Structures are given as structure tokens and as C-alpha cells.
């Protein structure tokens, strides 16, 4: 009873601890155990590759996967809300949408930082994934702005769910159009195929994905609980306001 009441639970604490330990291990593996990406040209014997910049991918790639995962959760929860109309689904959509927007921003930032040494540019207009991810980010900024514009969170639920679903439906279209727009891409078919995939590289990447999923789950869980509490607080506020207003009525 001594500890302050928070949105943490036993499960979330275990999840949080696991994430932190996993992250530390990931950093150790990514920075000190795995090799840099150095290759030799078969004819000239010249050195080429991503060198140590490859270590950014252990963060960037998992984060991208997690971003898409978060938006898929957001879309499913939005559909869930439209079907069930309960605040549980709305809170889930809100939580996933917000966490996804954060990780999406980080994907763009880490991608840009990685692109500078490897592609020799911070930003590449012709790249499909880069462009689609940026548009995705803007879409969900709009989504969060829409949510923020409502005083009554319950009224935000339906329009927000509709916007989230339209946005997610639009993503493949955006992807298509950008792909045809500039029929070239700097991203390899798979960013991994070009690397010397050793067991250790693959393991580190998988660990990165696992840790990112754990971190995302922790964030969504807590964001969900905050949204849930906000909803309860709003309901309580309404109840009190009704009581107060009734008193006024009978006082006349």
C-alpha cells in the first residue's frame, strides 16, 4: 500500500523490466559483438559496404516493423469501436495510434541518420518506403490533431475511428502511387539480403524486433490505461456536474 498508485501493474512491471534488460543486451550486441558491414569488391578488392552504420539498422528496421504493427492495431481497434461502440476499443485505438506516430517519427529520424553516410543523403525523394512512411506519419499527425480538437472524448471516438480506417485503407494506394511515380528505389528488395547475414546478425535483428515489440506493448499498455482513466475521469466529472446542476435546479 505504501507505493503510490500508478498505471503500472505486476504484468506491466515485468514487461518493463524485460524490455530494459532486452534493450541493454541489444545495445551490447549491436555495438560490440556484431561485425561492421565490410565487403570487398570481387575484382578490385576495394572495401565497400555500410561499415559501422549498419548498427543503426538493428534499431531502424525493428522500429519500422513495430510502427506498422501499431497502425494495424489502431485500425483493428477503430473497426472494433465502430462495431462495438465501447470505450475500450476507442482507448486502444488512441493508444496504438499515438505510440505508432512516435515510433514512425523515430523510423524517419533513424532512417535519415542512416541514409546520410550510406546513401550520402538525408532524404531521398525517389524512395518509395521513405515517402510512404512520411505520408503515413502526416496522416496520423492529422489523426491525433483531430482527437485533440474535441472537448468531449466520447464524441471524438467515431470520427477518429473513421479517419483511422480511411488512412489505413489509403496506405496501400499511397504506396502504389509513390512506387509508380518514381519507378526506382534505394531500399533493396530486402535491406537484409545485401548484408552478410550471419547467424549473429540475424539474431541481433530478431532480438531488436522482439525488444521493440516489448517496448511498444509497454507503451501502448500504459497509454491505454491513461486513456481509460481519462475516460473515467470525464465520466466522473459529468456525474458531479449533473449533481451540482440538479442542486441548482431545485434551489430555485
Amino acid at each position: 500500500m505504501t507505493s503510490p498508485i500508478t498505471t503500472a501493474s505486476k504484468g506491466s512491471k515485468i514487461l518493463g523490466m524485460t524490455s530494459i534488460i532486452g534493450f541493454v543486451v541489444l545495445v551490447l550486441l549491436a555495438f560490440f559483438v556484431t561485425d561492421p558491414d565490410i565487403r570487398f569488391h570481387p575484382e578490385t578488392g576495394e572495401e565497400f559496404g555500410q561499415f559501422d552504420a549498419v548498427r543503426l539498422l538493428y534499431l531502424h528496421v525493428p522500429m519500422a516493423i513495430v510502427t506498422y504493427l501499431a497502425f494495424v492495431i489502431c485500425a483493428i481497434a477503430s473497426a472494433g469501436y465502430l462495431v462495438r461502440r465501447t470505450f475500450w476499443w476507442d482507448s486502444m485505438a488512441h493508444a496504438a495510434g499515438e505510440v505508432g506516430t512516435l515510433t514512425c517519427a523515430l523510423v524517419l529520424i533513424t532512417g535519415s541518420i542512416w541514409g546520410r553516410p550510406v546513401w550520402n543523403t538525408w532524404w531521398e525523394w525517389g524512395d518509395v518506403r521513405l515517402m510512404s512512411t512520411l505520408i503515413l506519419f502526416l496522416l496520423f499527425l492529422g489523426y491525433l490533431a483531430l482527437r485533440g480538437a474535441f472537448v468531449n472524448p466520447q464524441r471524438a471516438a467515431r470520427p477518429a475511428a473513421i479517419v483511422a480506417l480511411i488512412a489505413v485503407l489509403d496506405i496501400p494506394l499511397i504506396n502504389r502511387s509513390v512506387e509508380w511515380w518514381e519507378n526506382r528505389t534505394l531500399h533493396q528488395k530486402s535491406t537484409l539480403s545485401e548484408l552478410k547475414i550471419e547467424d549473429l546478425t540475424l539474431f541481433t535483428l530478431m532480438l531488436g524486433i522482439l525488444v521493440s515489440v516489448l517496448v511498444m506493448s509497454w507503451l501502448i499498455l500504459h497509454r491505454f490505461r491513461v486513456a481509460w482513466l481519462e475516460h473515467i475521469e470525464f465520466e466522473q466529472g459529468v456525474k458531479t456536474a449533473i449533481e451540482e446542476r440538479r442542486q441548482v435546479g431545485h434551489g430555485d
Partner: protein
Amino acid sequence: MSVVKLDGLVALLEGFPALTGVDLTVNAGEILFVKGPNGAGKTTLLHLCAGLIQPKDGTGLILGHDLSSERTAIRKRVGLLSHSSGLYRDLTVLENITFWTQIAGVEQSEIDSRISWALERMELDSKLQNQKVRSLSAGQIRRTSLAVFIVRRPDLWLMDEPHAGLDQEGRQIVDDLIEESVAAGATAIVASHDFERVLKLSTRVVTLSGGAVVGVEHEGNQ
């Protein structure tokens, strides 16, 4: 038969509880006068009865339709005269009333006769009919809104300050219209500050305060 039956209805405007638990029954053929101080919830009550607001709590039946799940059906059958004119400023009086009659789904054969009846009742002469709403006086706009209101022949009349902005003559027309329509089978709920005028007209008076009904008086002309 009750036209309106509200049971513990709570309605929010954004976060604010405009209605805090309204119990109210209105029978067919009644002219209910709703009075109360500003901010008592009169306007919200009328909007709720029109099926424009999703109730937060409580149950309600309007003209036999459920207030939570069948609001589309309710909307078709009620008329709402609110503070705003509900008109298009850049269209003329005649264009406005024609549009609203057509969009309400009035039978093609009946449209012309209904429009000329409504215009005549509200004493909107042919010179006024061809003026843009933008150029009318407040009283003329009110008459146009009333013409749009009566042309639909709603079963339940919801009127928010129907006399506001009208001259003596206009007010008398409104009173006559309400009485005629009720005699023809409609029901009316009128919110107003004009106590004396509505008292003469009404069959029952309820007082709204703090978003709830705090008093019912059976007085008026019956």
C-alpha cells in the same frame, strides 16, 4: 396516447450536462409550455425531442420511436423552429421555401398549393418572396422560417421562442397556427419567455431548471 415520453433523460453538450434527468410525458393534442430561466436546458430539450442529440442516459419515446436508436424516423416527423433561421442567406424567400418543401419529400402535386398556402399564412407577399433572405429584416426572416416550418406539416411542433422578433400581428398568426394545427391532430411544445401569451395558449406548463423538470402546472385555457 403519449407523443413524448421521456424517462430520466440526460444529455450532454460537449462536456456540459445540459439536461440532468428529464421526466416528461406529453399527450397528443397538448400544447405544452416550457418555461425556465436562461440556460435551464429548454433549447437542448427541444433538440433532444427532435432526435438531434444522442441521449447520454435515460430512455425516451417520440411519436412511438425510440430516442436512442430510431432518431432518423423521429426527425422526419417533427418540426423544429430554433433561434437560427435555418435558411440560405443567398437564396430568395421563394427559393428557400421551395427547396425545403421539395427536400422534405412533399408530393409533387401538392408542392405548389402548400407553398402558396404557407406564404399566404405568413403574409409574405410576392415582392418579399423574390428578395434574398440576406436583405430581409429580422421579423421577415422569422416569418420565412415559420413558413418553412409549417409547409412540412410536422406531427410534433417544437418551437423555441416562436414569437421572438415578430410584431403583434405576427405573434397572433403564430398563435392561430399552433391552435389550428393542434386541432388538426398535431402536438406542440413551446419554449418561450413570453409568459402571458403562451399561458393563454397552452394546456399545461412545465418549469425547467438545472436541466430537469422542477414543476408542472395544469393551467392554461383548458
